[in-house]
């Protein structure tokens, strides 16, 4: 079991912190008074039964939902209410449970679009094309090719992603999030619907990303084996409330967690 820092990785200070987040849709409370933090360089898992509010939590962090109460602190600063594209520009990238790729565009174009927050030449230079804009394209293309190599998706570089099988689409989506070179990577069920081999690949990618680039990762996952193996710390949600928070071992032995997952009277 990989305890923090045991394998020589560096876990730094707090990167993101959510404080007392409460989110409701009309009368339905999706999240109630949730607080936890994500430390720099760690792999943080959010788990819980269906409808526990995991995805809602991720949507709050990435700016798709705006909580009624509570604060989000990123890199030591309290964040104002932000739109998703502003969050992305701050350095938070994400993937979706049900894949949100540009289906009509090629793998390469999808990844290049992921780099958009790093490309700064304005419309004027783009219209002229030769010169600065072209140099910028080439520089970013190099970074993208590196990611393509890393994920082993050279063969589908020019394929429209809508035509790819599900597992590969998930991989391209991860690639697009990687292309953003984000400080924080949010993965919403990166292994949902995958077969064993694909899951193993994805696990390896997540660990490698964390290891090689030092990217902080927060992920939602249902496969308990995967969660316990991958993550440094786990936060458990149930019915929009926080049940437990700690290392995989602590969480596994927490009576409240056992009850939520297995039911009372186990």
């Amino acid at each position, binding site marked *: 079991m990989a305890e923090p820092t045991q394998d020589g990785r560096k876990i730094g200070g707090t990167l993101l912190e959510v404080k007392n987040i409460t989110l409701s849709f009309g009368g339905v409370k999706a999240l109630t008074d949730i607080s936890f933090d994500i430390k720099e360089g760690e792999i943080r898992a959010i788990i819980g039964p269906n409808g526990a509010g995991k995805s809602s939590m991720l949507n709050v962090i990435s700016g798709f939902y705006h909580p009624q109460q509570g604060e989000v602190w990123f890199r030591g600063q309290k964040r104002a209410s932000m739109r998703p*594209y502003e969050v992305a520009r701050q350095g938070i990238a994400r993937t979706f449970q049900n894949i*949100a790729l540009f289906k*009509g*565009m090629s793998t390469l174009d999808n990844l290049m679009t992921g780099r958009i927050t790093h490309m700064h030449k304005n419309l004027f230079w783009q219209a002229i094309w030769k010169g600065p804009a072209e140099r910028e394209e080439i520089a970013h293309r190099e970074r993208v090719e590196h990611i393509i190599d890393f994920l082993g998706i050279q063969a589908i570089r020019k394929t429209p992603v809508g035509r790819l099988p599900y597992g590969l689409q998930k991989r391209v989506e991860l690639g697009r999030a990687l292309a953003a070179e984000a400080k924080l990577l949010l993965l919403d069920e990166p292994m949902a619907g995958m077969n064993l081999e694909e899951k193993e690949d994805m696990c390896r990618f997540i660990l490698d990303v964390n290891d090689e680039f030092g990217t902080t990762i927060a992920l939602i996952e249902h496969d308990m084996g995967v969660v316990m193996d991958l993550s440094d710390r786990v936060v458990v949600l149930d019915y929009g409330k926080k049940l437990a928070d700690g290392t995989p071992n602590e969480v596994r032995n927490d009576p409240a967690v056992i009850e939520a997952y297995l039911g009372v009277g186990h």
Partner: protein
Amino acid sequence: MSPELLNVLEVMLNGLLAGVMYSLVALGFVLIYKASGIFNYAQGVMALFAALTLVGFQTGQIPFAHVINTMFGTHVETWGPGVPTFLAIILTIGVMVLFAYLVERVVLKHMVNQAPIILFMTTIGLAYFMEGFGDLMWGADIKTMDVGLPSGASTWFETTTASWAAEGSNYPGMYVDMLDVSAAGIAILLVVVLTLFSQYTKTGRALRAVADDHQAALTVGISLRTIWVIVWSIAGCVALVAGIMWGAKSGVQFSLSLIALKALPVLILGGFTSIPGAIVGGLIIGVGEKLFEYSIGGMLGGATENWFAYGLALFFLMFRPQGLFGERIIERV
């Protein structure tokens, strides 16, 4: 070649050239529809407005001269001899970009996440507002547009084609209007530039990304509102080109805004979401209506060009409702 065959060729050639003009109008619709899912009814009026503005700059008209004269009892009309065509075009592009910005700021911003029908109604309102605003700004009289494009029959083409005919057939040669030819050339250039821009630049990629998936676009850090301003600006420039071409052909007047209606069958044929579709659709309608008029029109009492396109579109809807190049909607149940 026999004169009959040459006649048919001439009809088809003129059909193709007319079709390019239809494509140009349809292109403006497709751009906005792809990026925002809005069917922009105001596209035709945008062409009219752009043409009015261009002529206004060219002739040095004072905007709102009529209003000023009524309010202050003055008699001002122009502020000078006007600006050269090239500069006037640049200024008009500026006006269209400003217009796009205002549309986003004042109108679209409040319409996010509304049903398509509501967005459509909004653009109808926008169309009538612009029509009135254009009249108020530049006056309602019919203006002539002259941007220095060649016009009239091409004698070179006429003599060349005349020599194709069989000896002694007295074939006079084909008629082709130079204005149509230059319009087609400019339209092709415009499409090529737009395609290159959307394929090979950052903003082009962002435009395609937004057209593909709004949610995903937001996630990678694209501001939808910025993209909408850009798209409406491009649609404004396409409208300007359409306005110049149609304005040079038949004068800058209210009926110019009705060319939007001619784009509808083109869109039904080509599909609302496809740029190649808009072009091919335009060409098919152009050639189709000219050939129909030439071959069968006489038997039906002529003037079939008024309704042929709509008839063809209706026929098409029965077999391929998504258009030739449109995305087929397959839904899982």
